């Protein structure tokens, strides 16, 4: 078994991470103001209770947006090769859109698009 590479692999891995930690320990400036211990450190102390309930509608819209955003990415490479591939590419993208619209229809039917 040639395990030199493996040892090297582990060695470099440990070295890189360890070096970064040790190096940061020595050069990083330190401060211990009360703001430092806030969960979200953005410079300003939080006011009031941070355990707020937020509308689940945001989440649904974000998910739906993400789905259609990612699907749009698939259409760009299709558009590039559409002319060369001809009819088959067209049929395939129609099937793709059909499945996509099915998902949209489902979300619509389940009232995911209604802002409450």
């Amino acid at each position, binding site marked *: *078994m*040639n*395990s030199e*590479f*493996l040892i090297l*692999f582990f060695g470099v891995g440990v070295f890189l991470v360890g070096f970064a930690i040790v190096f940061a320990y020595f050069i990083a400036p330190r401060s211990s103001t009360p703001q430092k211990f806030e969960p979200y450190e953005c410079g300003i102390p939080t006011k009031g209770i941070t355990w707020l309930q937020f509308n689940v509608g945001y989440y649904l819209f974000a998910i739906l947006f993400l789905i259609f955003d990612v699907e749009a990415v698939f259409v760009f490479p299709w558009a590039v090769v559409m002319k060369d591939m001809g009819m*088959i590419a067209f049929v395939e993208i129609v099937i793709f859109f*059909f*499945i996509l619209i*099915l*998902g949209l*229809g*489902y979300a*619509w*039917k389940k009232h995911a698009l209604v802002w409450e």
Partner: protein
Amino acid sequence: MNLQDFLLMRHELLLVIFAAIILLAEIFTGENKNGIRNLSVILFSIITVAGFFPVPEGSLFGGMYKTDLLRVTVKNILNIGVLIVFIQSYSWLKFDENKNKISEYFTLLVSTLIGMNFMISSGDFLMFYLGLELATIPIAALAAYEIYKNRSAEAGVKLILSSALSSGVMLYGISMLYGATGSIYFDEVAPMVVKNAMIALSFIFFFAGMAFKISIVPFHLWTADVYEGAPINITSYLSVISKGAAVFILMIILFTVFRSIIFLWQEVIYVTAVLTMTIGNLFAIRQQNLKRFLAFSSISQAGFILLGVIGGNQIGMSSVIYYILVYIFSNLGAFGVVAAIANVTGKENIDDYNGLYLTNPKLSLTMMLALFSLAGIPPVAGFFGKFFLFIAAAQQGFYILVLIAVVNAIISLYYYLLVVKAMFLNKSENPIKYFKSDWMTRIGLLICILGIVAVGFASGIFEHLNFLSFGIN
């Protein structure tokens, strides 16, 4: 691509069409979704039958997708299992709290089946991984199906976290394999796999990731909690179908991609098989909840299945597939009885089954047959399944392993018989009352009984599988 090419991936296409039809039905029906249940069961029966028509063999997408008679056979076996799951969940879906989620149940379950089919047919690691993820993520949603129950939600979260971790570990292994060989196609990777540290490490990571999915000890810790929390029908699906598919593709990859480092993975499987059988058995003895009990019993069954993988021989592959078939019928039979009783009474502890034979003799007999098959008692199919697995391991000289397995089979007999004893011998003050299960449940259990009895006696099935299988040499 022409029409002939589409025929090659017929199983997957039919299932995609099925899922689309269910979604369309969901969109265009009103409040009452009961029709979707009937539609799904009828459509899926047609798909199951359609899977048996002969198709040409070949590969698609430049070798990413492969199909041959062996893979088609495994897909058909899985189809049968899913059909039984659908039939068994028929009356459970009738409950008020499940009524508005019927079409999601079918779409998600079929999505996982599509993923498994792609995984089985994969010709490279990318397709394999995509199929695996498609097979895993919807199951987490299904495990959390009864989201208003804490345990079910917990099962969903545990499943998705553990499967995310295992996928990460496995991807790391695959990336190392790609780094060492420069390809992700099984056919191209296989000749470049030589015995060195990088490959060995990539195999370990890959195996650990798969061991999570098959719940092999020491990667089994998620199993019992998820199995207990998830709805019974999902548990039965998880313990049979997804385990069967994962074992099959693990075996294919070990036999093709990693065939030149067989002495390495034989050692790994040797140790994990012994651990899996023993620990699964020892934990199963102490369980009171039947779902947890069956979860640990399914862990130990996974250890027995590894006995067929370890030899790397032809009879090993055929006995694993045969065992998956037998296991589908026996485990779904046991889960079917548990589901039928839990649906009516809500009881799922072994103590509740005391005196069941006096009140519900037919259900008790079905349960007894299924447990006998799981334990491997001669006249039923489970015996032949275990027998072939032992032969496969013994043929390659793993006598000590077979001995350990036999001892474990005896231990497992003890706790399977505990349930039988509870049903037939124990007296109870207030046993479960007599009830008539509806006809769909009965059909589901009848198919299981037929399978348990018939598969053992139809010797042609094993010969057919053996004809299709291949070994390493």
